[in-house]
């Protein structure tokens, strides 16, 4: 049975007079505000019943693909399963109903989770202190860069205005550096995406505040020269920042703190299974070595004899969140870590790496593999091996959608012109990987025998290729504009 395409907007279901709420009766004396304060016309929100709302959003959801729909190998996003027990326990009434400004002594359960989670993250990453208050990876980066800035200024070093970033880095890295008031110095990577040590040496001087690195990097390669790089940046007086987007590869293998990183951020919605939510809410905790522990954004939880308390670190860079960050998100990460425990956390890196390399080896004959060495948890193809019929990475990605598989990350990193970045994660079975491999082989074959069909994919999704230029030239961004 083919379902009819659901194309209604909630506003189009509206009928004047209908309600979808059951709010309490107003038993209070009625107050009128002075007329001059009042709005002239009411907001035109929909007027629908509860069934309308539920049916509508249920049908809207069916136009979406989630991790539970099928394989979602989006490189650098770590699309692993979001456990239901995390959702259930993080939203217990004793967490959900508590006001953030409730005093510490009657909120010890939450404070204990904050403290313990920060401790677990420190141990897993080899750092000494974490603030959980940053809302997303990009905000964690901003905090980390501000810590770098403040560190130098506190030592009366005001000339360090540059941050070095490899050209293979995620866009948030240079953007965060700009927001933190730095100049960005981009340094060329090697062909395998790793940082070019010679180029780095050339760039280092006493105006460099720090270096931002992802390890493994955005093409899934471990930065083999990391110890030398750490020494170089430290010797020139700078600090080393770790972008934790790819931490999943390192669980059970290595720790950023041991590599010489001074500051890290993590993405709990990647490595630690909290839901991606269609684009958030995530959580981007910022971690530091001991000498920077007083700089992190507060307030954070400390343990005082037998009690937990929130306090602002004494040299803090300031406040980056109204309260303590996305609490409902990081409580989920806490549950996840305790579900896996010491025995299993360390299996994640090796299994994620095994899965990625299995796919790589199985498809390297039909896709161009620019970097032959063993990858970590993700790797990059540079388009099809045989592009004689003009089939590009975009077309391959769109055709995958027809098979109930979400496309990998495409056209990032910018290092390769036809990038296809594949990250299976550790939770996917051999059967799923084999299905993906067979599908990719079929697509590669079809690219040669029926290129027009591939070029016009997807064919079986609710909508097909979109006119993005039209949307950008003439933006229609609200119902009123239609």
């Amino acid at each position, binding site marked *: 049975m083919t379902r009819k395409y659901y194309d209604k907007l909630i506003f189009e279901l509206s009928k004047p007079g209908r309600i979808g709420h059951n709010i309490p009766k107003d038993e209070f004396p009625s107050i009128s505000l002075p007329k001059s304060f009042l709005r002239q016309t009411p907001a035109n929100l929909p007027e629908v019943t509860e069934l309308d709302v539920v049916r509508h959003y249920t049908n809207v959801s069916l136009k979406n693909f989630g991790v539970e729909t099928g394989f979602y190998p989006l490189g650098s996003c770590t699309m692993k399963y979001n456990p239901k027990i995390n959702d259930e326990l993080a939203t217990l009434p004793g967490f959900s109903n508590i006001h953030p400004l409730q005093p510490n002594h009657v909120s010890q359960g939450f404070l204990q989770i904050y403290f313990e989670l920060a401790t677990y993250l420190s141990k897993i990453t080899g750092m000494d202190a974490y603030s959980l208050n940053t809302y997303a990876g990009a905000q964690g980066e901003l905090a980390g860069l501000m810590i770098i800035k403040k560190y130098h200024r506190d030592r009366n070093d005001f000339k360090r205005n540059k941050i070095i970033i490899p050209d293979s880095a995620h866009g948030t890295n240079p953007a965060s550096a700009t927001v933190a008031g730095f100049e960005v110095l981009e340094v060329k990577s090697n062909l395998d995406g790793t940082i070019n040590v010679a180029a780095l040496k050339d760039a280092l001087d006493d105006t460099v505040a720090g270096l931002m690195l992802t390890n493994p990097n955005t093409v899934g390669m471990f930065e083999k020269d990391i110890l030398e790089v750490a020494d170089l940046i430290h010797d020139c007086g700078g600090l080393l920042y770790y972008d934790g987007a790819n931490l999943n590869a390192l669980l059970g293998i290595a720790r950023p703190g041991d590599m010489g990183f001074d500051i890290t951020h993590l993405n709990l919605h990647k490595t630690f299974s909290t839901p991606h939510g269609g684009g958030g809410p995530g959580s981007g905790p910022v971690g530091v070595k001991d000498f920077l522990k007083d700089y992190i954004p507060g307030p954070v939880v400390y343990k005082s004899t037998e009690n937990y308390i929130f306090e602002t670190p004494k040299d803090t860079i300031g406040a980056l969140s109204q309260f303590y960050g996305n609490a409902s998100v990081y409580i989920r990460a806490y549950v996840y870590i305790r579900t896996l425990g010491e025995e299993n956390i360390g299996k994640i890196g090796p299994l994620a790496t095994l899965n990625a390399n299995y796919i790589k080896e199985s498809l390297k004959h039909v896709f161009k593999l620019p970097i032959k060495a063993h990858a970590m948890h993700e790797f990059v193809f540079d388009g099809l091996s045989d592009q004689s019929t003009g089939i590009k990475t975009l077309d391959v990605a769109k055709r995958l959608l027809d098979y109930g598989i979400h496309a990998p990350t495409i*056209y990032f990193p910018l290092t390769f012109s036809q990038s296809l970045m594949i990250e299976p994660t550790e939770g996917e079975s051999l059967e799923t990987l084999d299905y993906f491999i067979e599908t990719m082989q079929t697509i590669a074959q079809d690219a040669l025998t029926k290129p027009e069909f591939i070029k016009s994919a997807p064919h079986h999704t609710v909508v097909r290729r979109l006119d*993005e*230029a039209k949307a*950008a*030239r003439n933006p229609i961004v609200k119902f009123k504009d239609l």
Partner: protein
Amino acid sequence: MNKNDLLYLDTHEWVFIEGNKAKVGISSYAAMHLGDIVFFDLPEVGQSFKKGDVFAAVESVKSASDLYLPLTGKVVSVNAALSDEPQLVNEDPFDNFIIEIELSHPEEAKSLLSVDDYEATL
């Protein structure tokens, strides 16, 4: 405009000099690599720029690029058609100029690339 009559920067801007004025645009290479152009962020008439300054920005669906001025001058007109139809530059990048300037140092033209020298850089 014929591309052979133009002078170029290696950042893909072209310039067509007429007396003490010049029209500025982007080459077909640039237009092709940008893809469907959706917006031009243009300067105001009367603004002055030095050779090499960023005078405008061009946005496509998937990218944004700064445009560099080949010669020092003052903006005397902008191509108004581009606000409604930025894709004109995709259709004919050599016929659709972006801005017109009044030159203050016309001798700077000596350092620009001829069409052959520019195409050799591609």
